[in-house]
């Protein structure tokens, strides 16, 4: 019975103790600063003799890392291998616990605000992480950045920095979004890669008359796939600054700018797979794999069957207004730590390892076309496709994350429904879609007290 009472107790505490969390977090931040200036004397020489970069003996203090997996893939969580390598190299202790991503998402507020949290947590860069950081719930990892991550791209550092200038996030890997296609299909039909919107719509039209489904897509249970189209159309028509402001609720979803987006959206809408709303995103890709569909807008995480590894390529979402610089979406994953962690120094020690090229290689090894955040990962570790993806992002004028990561989950759900519905139903439903979207956005803003 004690377990039961304890369990109940912690749940209540996580609510009632919310006020105390700020205090606790500032205490642990202080503790962090204090120890950072007085390096600990190593008590075990064994750990230091291993020749690794680890200067801190954490062999008696287990750092617990909570990660997640998307399940069903059958692939081993790369985090296990990363932890094993770290343990072998330093003698420090790390414990990895991996759960399904949905379980993780539902537990996340509890993880970060609990009095006995996992030390490190894997999550996505962007609004949710930033929100926790601004609430003072996350550990300041600025010294990991200054000591070990000086060569990381400035964009990733900005993404990991809170409003007071402190870093709270260790990026490990990111990917790009683009229009994917199979070069063999383009060759067989004599298509060329479109760079302008008119070429793009013309190509879709041509594909349709050639008996192909021009655009493969599945949004059942994954309506965010539809929102990628909105993101790109808005970025190409109204630019990054307007896009960010819109996602902060500073403009109307029923206003002239968004209507302009949907005018272009309507030009391509007839060319989407008509089954979009009834199939999941993976099923939605099958026609592309089977050469029954021409192209798809997708992130680099798309599963690439081995037999088509040499027959998949991508091009940047076409230009609509040449005066608007090319902006790309590059969602980034990484780690943060709870401010309530019992072992801030050992957690940061492990985070420093997570930032190394060696560790980051493990994260990108078996997970599609991912790019390591650490810029010193040698070129030959990447496939030709991934190198092209990296250059595709490096040449972009600005980088966004994705609708939900740039705004909030709450703001994203009405957007996802609106865009998935537009793809399925087209212009006939537009008025209803925009007014519902705007009303939903207003409700969210009112709730947030804006």
């Amino acid at each position, binding site marked *: 019975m004690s377990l039961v009472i304890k369990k109940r107790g912690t749940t209540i505490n996580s*609510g009632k103790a919310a006020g105390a969390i700020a205090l606790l977090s500032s205490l642990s931040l202080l503790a962090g600063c204090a120890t950072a200036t007085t390096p600990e004397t190593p008590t075990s020489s064994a750990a230091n003799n291993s020749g690794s970069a680890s200067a801190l003996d954490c062999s008696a203090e287990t750092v617990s890392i909570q990660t997640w997996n998307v399940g069903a893939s059958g692939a081993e969580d790369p985090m296990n291998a990363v932890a094993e390598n770290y343990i072998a190299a330093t003698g420090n202790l790390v414990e990895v616990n991996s759960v399904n991503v949905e379980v993780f998402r539902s537990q996340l*507020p509890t993880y970060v605000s609990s009095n006995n949290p996992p030390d490190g947590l894997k999550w996505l860069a962007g609004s949710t992480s930033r929100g926790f950081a601004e609430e003072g*719930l996350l550990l300041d990892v600025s010294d990991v950045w200054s000591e070990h991550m000086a060569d990381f791209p400035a964009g990733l550092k900005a993404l990991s920095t809170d409003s007071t200038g402190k870093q709270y996030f260790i990026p490990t890997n990111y990917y790009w979004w683009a229009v994917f296609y199979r070069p063999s299909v383009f060759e067989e039909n004599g298509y060329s890669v479109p760079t302008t919107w008119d070429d793009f719509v013309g190509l879709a039209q041509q594909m349709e008359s050639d008996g192909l489904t021009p655009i493969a897509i599945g*949004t059942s249970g994954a309506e965010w796939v539809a929102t990628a189209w909105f993101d790109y159309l808005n970025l190409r028509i109204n630019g990054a600054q307007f896009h960010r402001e819109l996602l902060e609720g500073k403009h109307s979803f029923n206003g002239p700018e968004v209507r302009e987006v949907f005018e272009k959206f309507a030009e391509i809408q007839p060319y989407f797979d008509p089954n979009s709303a*009834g199939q999941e995103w993976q099923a939605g890709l099958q026609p592309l794999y089977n050469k029954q569909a021409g192209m798809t807008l997708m992130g680099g995480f798309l599963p690439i069957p081995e037999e088509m590894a040499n027959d998949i390529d991508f091009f940047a979402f076409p230009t609509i207004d040449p005066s608007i610089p090319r902006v790309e979406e590059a969602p980034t994953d990484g780690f943060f730590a709870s401010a309530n962690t019992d072992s801030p120094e050992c957690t940061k020690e492990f985070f420093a390892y997570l930032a190394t090229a060696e560790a980051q290689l493990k994260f990108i090894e078996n997970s599609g076309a991912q790019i390591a955040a650490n810029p010193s990962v040698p070129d030959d570790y990447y496939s030709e496709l991934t190198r092209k993806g990296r250059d595709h992002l490096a040449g972009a004028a600005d980088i966004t994350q994705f609708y939900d990561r740039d705004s909030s989950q709450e703001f994203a759900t009405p957007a996802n429904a609106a865009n998935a*519905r537009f793809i399925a139903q087209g212009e006939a439903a537009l008025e209803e879609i925009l007014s519902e979207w705007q009303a939903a956005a207003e409700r969210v803003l009112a709730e947030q007290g804006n």
Partner: protein
Amino acid sequence: MRLFRGDRFAAIVMLGLPLLFELVWVMWPALQSIGISTLRWNGTSEPTFIGGENFTNLLSDPLFLTAITNNVKWLFVFGILSVLGGLALALALHEQIKGWKIYRTAFFAPIAVSFVVTGFIWKWMFAPTGVINTGLDAFGLEHLVTNWLGEEDVALWSIVVAATWRQVGYIMILFLAGLKAVDLSTVEAATVDGANYWQRLRHVVLPALAPSTATVVAVTVIDSMRTFDIVWSMTQGGPFNTTQVLSTLMWREAFGNYNLGYASAIAVIILLLTLGFVIVYLLRAIPKDTK
């Protein structure tokens, strides 16, 4: 065979333990939800007390209205289909027609499959190129081929079909148990008096089945109001929120959007609706049986 010396001691242990579990795991969290439903709280920051604001916001939230309408549609269609289907199966199998044991097992088997798995099986069948559409196509019924889970007017009913498929066997077993208790001599007497099948069913069998019916209706109402797993596994409330029910909306608000106060308000409404239906029904149904 007696484990306990005194009846009183046995009663205290046997009733006390479940009561304790009920208090700790059911009553206390339920009361807590009521408390949280008066807060604006994201799970990490300081909660703000806002009184009944979550409830007034719900009333103007079109998604909540969609969800509650879907629950009501679900309650009636799923309820009527599964109760009538279960009753019909029970009556047919009670006659011990040839091979009734096989039929009984076959109809009851889906209950061994969880709602989540049921959802996955049917999602696969309802897929645009799934067995249902390819089957219709093969039989020359192309005009019936539909995007079962992708059309907003069809998706909810597709899920109801899947849920009913699983529930019918369960209801059948409840009614079969009830039919065993029907006094055969009254049925025979009615037959001798010249009552036909429908008259016997209407005036003899159904009244005798009333206690089972009360259980069946209560179970069905509760299952309808709390339905979650099958909707979640088949559509997650989509396409475009058209299959949202109260529990999926609650889940999304709580664990997607981290609006724990708002989600708790939905939980409280589910609780009140379920209790309301069940209490009213049992008050009407049970005294009649016990007289």
